[in-house]
């Protein structure tokens, strides 16, 4: 799991930010603790988010990461994405 490089730096890369902004309904800043469900991420949108991220990073989420915990917050999702990305 990859923590943000420094507290001042963005918590994730621009691609992740773009995909999240595109798929997650609610407005407002996205920080690692942002609860995606509170921003209106419903079942359809969470599947859309999964597919978009797999395409953007050319990764495949294994079954054990297909969980509510992974998609709970922007930070939990990024930690899985960044780990999968470095495994490639």
């Amino acid at each position, binding site marked *: 799991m990859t923590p943000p490089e420094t507290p001042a730096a963005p918590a994730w890369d621009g691609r992740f930010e773009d995909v999240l902004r595109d798929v997650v309904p609610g407005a407002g800043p996205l920080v690692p603790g942002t609860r995606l469900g509170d921003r209106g991420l419903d079942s359809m949108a*969470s599947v859309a988010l999964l597919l978009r991220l797999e395409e953007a990073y050319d990764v495949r989420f294994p079954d054990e990461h*297909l969980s509510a915990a992974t998609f709970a917050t922007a930070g939990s999702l990024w930690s899985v994405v960044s780990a999968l990305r470095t495994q490639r």
Partner: protein
Amino acid sequence: MVSTDVVSPDVVSPDVVSPGGVVDRVEDLLSAAVAARPDARAVSDPDGSWTYADLDTACRSWTEWLRRNGVEAGDRVVLRMRNCRDLAAVVFAVLRRGAVVVPLSTATRPFQLAHVLRTTAPRVVLAHDGDADHVRDLVPGIPVHDVDRGPHSAPTPVASRARSREDGPAPAFLVHTSGSTAMPKGVVSPHAAVLFVTRAIAHRLRYRGDDVVLGTVPASFDYGLYQLLLSVHATAELAFADPSPVRLLAEVHRTGATVLPLVPSAGQLLVRLAGRDPREPNAVRMVTSTGEALPPALVRELSRVLPRATVVPMYGTTECKRICVDDPLDPSPVGSVGRALPGTVVEVVDESGVPLPPGTQGEIVVRGPHVMAGYWRSPQATVQRFRCGTVGVVLHTGDLGHVDDAGNVYVSGRRDGVFKRHGVRTSAAEVEAAARDVPGVAAAAVLPPDETHDAAVFALRRPGERLDDDSLRAGLAARLEPAKVPPSCHVVEEFPLTAHGKTDLARLAAGLRGPTPQDTGPDGKPLHTDPLTRDHRGDHRDAARPDPARPDAAAGPSHRSDAA
């Protein structure tokens, strides 16, 4: 309530007597299954599985716990539980006490939960760890048990109470449903009606003892609750799935499911997930669908990703559980939801209740032993839907449609402001009542979804109050289950009025269709196109504009649907 001379229950005779003996109460289904196949797997969840003998043992422990906690015949027991093995045990345990199961969604918000707790006045509420305290604070005086601690806690003191004589004989269930009213109503579901409809559905669908039925639909929704009854009736396994939507197909593989009861929006998820999953779900032999209209395009896509499965459209309403089930061996024409259940009657009537000839559009009405006994302690709402006629009780569904010469039923819409999102029934009245409860809202108007836009809510801001689109959305999310919160939430400074001084919904709708046409939401596009270019906000974002290169982007079928 219904004279049985209008129907012939013998039509479903092959299933009337279960292997374990005569079944005349819902809990007898379990006893029959335990007697017939004690070592067969009965119910599983991600944490483990139980045979029918195990389920019976757990059920006996819960029955004893309920007895020690003063639960008597006719008492209501609220189950605010997610799908898990204990839920299966508790449902039958409550019935064995002669008490009434009141399943409630864990997503029910305090605004509506408090109403249901007050109107059903349960003897005890069973809720999960973390939620139990929250429920306890909501309506003081109702004991709340943390179901995750099992049937082992010390008995709570039992206060004496009077039973209302008006309630009649104890039903099996009170299943709550949202209709055209602000608050959910409990459909009184007697044992005889529940058993009749369970057998009638079983007769059509033919679940088998070697089936693994995937439990994705929450038991608070009758579609989910009856999966338990249908599985036990067939001595099949009900495999409760992890509810995370991204796991849906992974759960099919994990459980080895052979039968997938899905609402169409879950079918959409499955199709999308199949596109990223190289495994072939070859064990699946049947997909059933109800809760909203099943678009023919989705039937084709499901058949493609589940090559060995038959897709069975169904149609129902909690007030009689199920109206139509297609016959998998003799499918109805595309677009139909199948024929009436055996032993029941479906008709289409005009506005004065006169039956219309085949092919004519009207309101769908239902008769038969499956028509439930009205709404819990709501005589006025009951007489509107459950109307007494010369042929017995006629259930007025509020759905529009027609029946063809062969008896195939087609559903086309609703008469009132009732609509469905993600299989969850709600109405303009329900969403507007929740919006008016949000601080800063002076008035609210809801546009049900149609071909051009998903559901939208407009709130009139009270002068001087702080309220914006996001706080409106958050306020609604605190009061309604997620599927009932319109994706498009707008705070306005004034409501356009019609010449008669009523809120001009047409002008509000026109505003929605303005320079950035609405995408219709997750179901609103042909499935073979890339679902990922869609904007899910359905509002004022550039991504919501139809891509000129994708002329179909705004022209797909609407998400709106009315078949239950």
